[in-house]
């Protein structure tokens, strides 16, 4: 066998292995989707989320006031509800399999850690992202239907309240959803008991929604944190990074005042680190690497 044949063989093997991982990943993802569809509590949560978003868009100034007002109406709402949804959708995802013993069984099916964690994440993410994106896009349709002609002496700048801005908000919301879900799946993979997982997931949600921001405000007010580094600090929390990106790219300007939206690039990097870090933790912690048992 020539050298190139050896290389070709090795490539073939690698390709086959990658294919197997991808296949397994989708099998696992499908199981997660089925689980969600067949878990009434999650379906109820999804319906409640959708109804709440519709309610906010309908009742607030947003739906009838334009895309930017709608974005601002929904921003805080998404910031609070998406972490809660992600916790509900994710915190038992891997832990459940660990507790039933299915995780051990799965491993005898020679499923790689990437395929398993990736599949769990993909399945849950598909459901959650579809829910968030679908709901947000649906309420976005309110704007053209509900916005009345505003009587004004001023000429309206058609560019300032464009649907394009709202789509950016939806994309950022999807990214935020993916990141918070990754963190929850990371917790689910790293913990061994429901109590720990629940405590950690709750702590995560509270930290995201309240804790980190409050700490930043307290730190700045108390002088413990320097104002110079605010952009970095804002990028540390997924929530403030997400908020900063929405304000800088989807809202653009608020009230003619400058907004402490941080640095878009830093915010993006912060979110990326959370995402990859969480998934890496999940892959690392889901089960210990065991050498192949085959001779």
């Amino acid at each position, binding site marked *: 066998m020539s050298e190139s044949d050896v290389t070709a063989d090795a490539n073939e093997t690698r390709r086959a292995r990658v294919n197997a991982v991808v*296949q397994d990943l*989708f*099998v696992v*993802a*499908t*199981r997660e*989707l089925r*689980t969600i569809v067949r*878990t009434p509590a999650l379906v109820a949560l999804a319906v409640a989320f959708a109804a709440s978003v519709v309610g906010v868009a309908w009742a607030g*100034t*947003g739906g009838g006031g*334009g895309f*930017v*007002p709608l974005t*601002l*109406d929904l921003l805080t709402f998404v910031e609070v509800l998406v972490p809660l949804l992600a916790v509900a959708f994710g915190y038992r995802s891997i832990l459940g399999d660990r507790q*039933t*013993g*299915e995780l*051990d*069984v799965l491993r*005898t*099916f*020679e499923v790689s850690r990437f395929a398993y964690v990736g599949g769990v994440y*993909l399945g849950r993410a*598909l459901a959650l992202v*579809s829910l968030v*994106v679908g709901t947000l896009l649906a309420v976005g349709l309110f704007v053209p239907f509900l916005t009345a002609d505003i009587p*004004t*002496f*001023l*000429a*309206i*700048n*058609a*560019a*300032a*309240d*464009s649907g*394009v*801005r709202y*789509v*950016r908000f939806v*994309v950022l919301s*999807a990214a935020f959803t993916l990141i918070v879900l990754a963190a929850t799946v990371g917790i689910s993979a790293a913990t061994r008991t429901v109590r720990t997982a629940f405590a950690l997931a709750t702590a995560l949600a509270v930290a995201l929604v309240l804790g980190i921001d409050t700490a930043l405000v307290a730190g700045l007010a108390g002088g413990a944190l320097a104002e110079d580094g605010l952009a970095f600090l804002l990028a540390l929390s997924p929530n403030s990074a997400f908020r900063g990106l929405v304000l800088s*790219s989807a*809202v*653009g*300007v*608020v*009230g*003619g*005042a*400058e907004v402490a939206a941080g640095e878009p690039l830093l915010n993006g990097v912060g979110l990326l680190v959370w995402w990859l870090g969480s998934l890496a933790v999940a892959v690392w912690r889901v*089960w210990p690497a*065991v050498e*192949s*048992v*085959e*001779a």
Partner: protein
Amino acid sequence: MAILSPTGTQWLTAAVTLSLVAASLSFALTPASGESLQPVDFADTVDMGGTGVDARRAEAEGFVLPRVEVFYSGYRYVVGYVGIETAVGELGDPSAQRQFGDPLAVYVSDLSTVSPTLTEEGFVTPERGRSVGWTPADTAFYVVGSEAAIPSGPVTVAFSERADAEAFADAHGGEVVDWGTLQSRVGDPLPARLDEFERSVEARHAWANDTVSTAERLRERPVSVVVGADASAVPDDRRRADGVASEPTVADAIDAAPPDTTVYLPAGTYDVDEVTLNRSITLAGAGPETVLRGDGNRSVVYVRADAAAVSDLGVAGVGDVGSRGRDSRNDTTDWDTTVQLAYGYGDAGIVLDGAANAAVSNVEIDTPASGVIVRESPDSVLRGLTVRGADTAREGFMGVVLIGAPSAVEESTFVGGRDGVYTHRADGSVVRDNRADPGRYGVHEMYTSESLVANNTVRDGQAGVIVMTRPVENLIVGNDVRGNTYGVVPAGSDSYYARNVVVDNEYGLQVAATATPSSTTSSSATASARAQRHPPVELGTQKRLRGQRAGRRIADRPAPDVVSRRRRQPLGRAADRRRGRRRRLRPAVPADRDGRLADRGSLGRDDARAVARGRDAAPRPGRGLRPPTVGRGRHRRADAAVPLRNDGAPREREYGRCVGVSEESASTASPALSAQSLAQSFGDVDVLSGVSLSIDRGEVAAVVGPNGSGKSTLLHVLAGIAAPESGSVSVGYRRGARSVGYLPQQPAFRAGFTARDTLDFYAQLLEGVDDGDVDATLERVGLADVADRNVGSLSGGMTRLLGLGVAILGDPSVLVLDEPGSGLDPAMVERLFGVVGDLAADGAAVVVASHELPAVQAHADTVYVLDEGDFVATGSPESLLAETESASLSEAFLELVGARAGESTVRAGIGRRSSESDREADETPADGDRGDDAAAGTEVPADE
């Protein structure tokens, strides 16, 4: 649910991903293309520049103001600028972009649409009847430095056609440049502007200094007339004229005094109706002791001559009418006149009326209305005044009213009344170093531009310094404003607010005011709740917006509305106890039985047996007793320690099938599963102490042992789901889609799935396993009838069978089953072991941990007795029975692991106990009771 298949998931993933990628293109798009943004009527824009004067005059006189319209990406309305330079400066200012977003479209007034001519003043006038159009800024041509101007200064003009621009430049001077060049010439205007402002501050102070020193000279005029006394009443420090006259009344004295002299009033109170200075003289007293007392119905002193002065006296008896404007307001509709009448014709202590260079100094005034009213008296000076007004703002009026001309007001004190200093069109006035404790405002500027309000102290009013209307170029610097409802309220444009101390006010700096940029720097501001002075806060350049008309306030923008609501099971057995029991056991399994204990480190492989179990259905391995080891890592099974069955014939299982291993890929010489020197510890407790085993195809090996003996840990390691600390496991061949199948101790499955769904899922993870295999598996484990039942509704036994089904999917080479029969009724146990036997008959190597010793005795080929992490005995059930001289495996078990087994979970009538007692059992002496627990409980606890 077709979509809930791996393929469906792939499509869904692709769809969601594509949607998100497509939606992400929104970041690359500008919210609306510039082409769709067409110029609008300038009156409908949010006006960001230009003075009211320019706008009014342009409208009245019909000249052109070069204008710019900008569509920002982040601002709901169109922004209009007067003056191309203003717009360019703003477009180049990063803070404007942060505020409004990116400029998407910029239009400028296009003079190519008219044929421009210039007036004498340089104003651009279009042809009669033609209106100026718009052209995109980036394609226009600009004439800079020409004679073209608007009232506030020279301007750049734009043309859509280069020829027109060049023609204009030829006719009126200037240079033709393009948009890029124009932008490059307008840098960051702020630092230069700040310098300019500071120079203006100095210049206005200088003007005030000059004006004041001129006025001070008026106090030094020689005394020519003394009222009510002779010349001796004149203090020595006053100069006297040649021949000092004496007059009985103030009016007489004024009449008698020659120009440029002083009428002196010695201390005393002078009742007067109305004193009028209509010549350039000075009316001076001895200080506050000299009081001019009016009749209480009107103003007391009128100064109507240039360079006239009043000094060093007190004024009282002032009328109480603050404003007389209302009486004559009907006579005119001119707003300016109206205001002048309203504010300029009330009662006052002293009125300066058309008295240029006049001065009032060191005068104390008690007044229910105004202190001093200055009308059209340029360069007048009010200095060292003390004005005590009414108790309330409502009753009183202004300390000083300046109307229509620049005056200097300094070093004066205003107490009570309405406003300290009120200005109306008093452009160029300087108000400095005063102190006010006003009823309403400290310094109140209306329609007053180019003023300087410096170093004033205001306490406890409604506002400290308040600027209204839309003035330009006011300088508000160095004021100390505390305890007011509002500290500083700016307005207008091109103005400078700096170095003000704004402390303890309810609202420090109200930012809701004006158009076009003003600079507000280094003013100290803090919330009123804070007691201490804070270091200066750099507020930077503030941009404020306000629409020009009612209904055009920025408040109707959407954004502000929204924003404002803005351990481990202790296996603590003493080592000596372990050693003691081993010592006891050792004689039971003589090491020299076969005379062939394995060498340390060699693989315990039974070559003879391997050969015997070749594919030609050679005789099955016999059952023999294998020697245990002493101490960790010492046990090695002896080669050929297990003799073949005596008859050498293929061994038949009780359920009767001849076993042959066929068509397997691996060498028939290697065992299906071999483990070497497996060691595992948790903390300082050894769970596995270097155990080794080897299991062949078709062999059913049972691992038995008391609770906590390490069975589950061993099985985890054998199944490849836990890594041993040392040692290795190898699977010697592969017959199906995977190596190892595993049944956990208490299998459970995802709720909401049926038995078939569950198997389907696992089948999909294996290559070459299809629905048919799933059906076959269901059939094999006896779940075909309940295949479509939810796993939640399956009994414990059925769930175990489903777990077995999952374990055997894909025909694994090795099956590792952890307590498959625990918790099941005897029939179910038998059925389960029956399936296990079938699987072995099919060629799988089966390792089963179990407490069901009768079933083990019936179905297992080899029994490994594990205790405290090590095999204490190994062999066929028969050999174990023979060795221990027991009637059943249960008895043999008890014999081998001692009385502790009785405290453990031993099934089938031998004895068992709950796991809670395990720890207790661990502490029980080796010779403890066995019979007490014999009948206890029905449930098998977890092993580990």
